[in-house]
């Protein structure tokens, strides 16, 4: 059912913890309409209940034992360690290269020794970290603002050494350069997708990558127009950046890009403000400047949550939720309705 994807994270959290007020509202509405998610939540609760939740506590300080082990082991000399691990493969690799060259010379080149030579060189080269070298070169290029050059160096390294221990990190850096620096969202979408598919461990450990891929997946059908619109506000000749961001919020209620636009609005007003305003003041200022009813409704929802949760001002929160319910379209109205119900 549409909307299952939006609530899946809230659903999982609800197995263990009471959701936040706005999330509870969204969850209640969805569970009221979706038997599949209701069943899933019930099964997860059964699963959690059937697994013993007790802890096994360590109960001791391991420092003395570990210090003793360190004292007993051979001195940790990085060069010694390098020799232990890489000497045999390096010597074997060199021997194969010499043999391959000899055979190549004798056979007049009919046997393709080049591939073996490359493989053997790679075996020796991996000891020096080709991807690590590429990452260092890319850092240098990026520091000189040659982000395209940095990306190319890393792409070549990942293509040649996909099995290198740092290849996943290089791939993540490629995706980040495409997104943050080059603003090539089509390319960023490809590279984050490649990161998820080919280097799942590196992808899964980085929440920024997960969030970005979700954002890009939402926006690719519209050719990332909303993202480009958000970027355009940084253009010094941009007429009215605030209005542009407001239009993005109005056109994309409840989506990742709307939250991005709101965050950029906050940043915009921070620059204009004297001193460091509180988030509530910023949101009030944004609300005052917005003219689009859907954008205002979204700001009202966020502001209502702030008044309720952080300032304990339920009267003001109720007022804001009521305004959001009236002006924001069906999806935002439903969220506002749930938020109001929570105040009762």
């Amino acid at each position, binding site marked *: 059912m549409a909307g299952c994807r939006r609530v*899946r*994270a*809230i*659903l*999982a*959290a609800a*197995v*263990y*913890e009471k959701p936040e007020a706005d999330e509870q509202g969204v969850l209640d509405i969805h569970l009221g309409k979706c038997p599949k998610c209701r069943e*899933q939540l019930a*099964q*997860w609760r*059964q*699963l*959690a*209940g*059937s*697994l*013993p*939740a*007790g*802890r*096994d*506590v*360590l109960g001791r*300080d*391991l*420092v003395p*034992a*570990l210090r003793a*082990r*360190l004292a007993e082991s051979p001195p*940790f000399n*990085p060069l010694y*360690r390098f020799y232990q691990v890489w000497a045999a493969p390096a010597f074997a690799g060199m021997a194969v290269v010499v043999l391959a060259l000899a055979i190549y010379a004798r056979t007049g080149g009919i046997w393709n020794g080049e591939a073996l030579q490359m493989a053997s060189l790679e075996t020796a080269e991996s000891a020096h970290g080709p991807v690590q070298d590429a990452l260092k070169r890319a850092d240098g290029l990026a520091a000189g603002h040659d982000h395209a050059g940095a990306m190319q160096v890393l792409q070549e390294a990942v293509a040649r050494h996909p099995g290198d*221990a740092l290849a996943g*990190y290089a791939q993540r850096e490629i995706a980040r350069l495409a997104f943050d620096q080059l603003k090539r969202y089509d390319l960023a979408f490809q590279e984050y997708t490649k990161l998820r598919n080919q280097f*799942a*461990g590196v992808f*899964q*450990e*980085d*929440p*920024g990558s*997960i*969030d970005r891929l979700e954002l890009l997946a939402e926006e690719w059908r519209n050719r990332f127009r909303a993202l480009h619109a958000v970027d355009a506000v940084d253009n010094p000749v941009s007429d009215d950046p605030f209005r542009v961001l407001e239009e993005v919020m109005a056109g994309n209620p409840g989506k990742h890009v709307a939250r991005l636009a709101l965050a950029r609005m906050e940043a915009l007003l921070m620059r204009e403000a004297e001193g460091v305003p509180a988030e509530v003041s910023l949101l009030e200022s944004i609300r005052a400047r917005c003219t689009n009813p859907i954008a205002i409704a979204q700001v009202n929802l966020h502001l209502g949550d702030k008044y309720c949760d952080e300032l304990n001002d339920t009267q003001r929160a109720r007022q804001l939720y009521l305004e959001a319910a009236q002006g924001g379209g069906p999806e935002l109205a439903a969220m506002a309705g749930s938020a109001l119900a929570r105040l009762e």
Partner: protein
Amino acid sequence: MEYTALADKELALALKKGEDGAFDEMVRRYQGRVYAVAYRLTTNREDALDVTQDALLKAYRKIGSWRPTGGFLPWLLRLTRNQAIDHIRRRKRRRHEPLDEAFRQRSQGEDIEPSTVSTETAVRAREIDERVREALLKLSPTQSTVFILRHYEGMALAEIAVALGCTVGSVKVHLFRALKKLRVELVDLYQD
């Protein structure tokens, strides 16, 4: 230098620079969490202790490969998981296995407390632990870490987010993926 006051990343950077005092603080700060993950993946206190020690020493020796762009704890727990997997493989290859935990403790001269739990219950508990262990190993490192910290360690999702250096939203997504897979792997444990 007072290492206890350092934030996680600063402590890791001090370790990376080779500052000797940083090692003790690293062990004391993380040994509990590392042990929790190791125990859930080995289901055995002795093995969990071995894995914990091995993982902490490995982290010290391999700190050069940790990149400051990522959190230290996620890296350490991933290392722990790999150590646990290696340990389990080595355990399977051993020719002789102790009959049970009590036999191993007796042979080491430790006192064994009289059990107040029936044998059948203990066996069933062990079976469940073993099934969960196998299922956890099918999750990604982050998914299993989030699940272990939430379900077994009772940490709030917001605390897990701080520990892993990510957003609460991301923690929830990892938990969702973990529960989704565990539901399939362990269906017979909770269905009537």
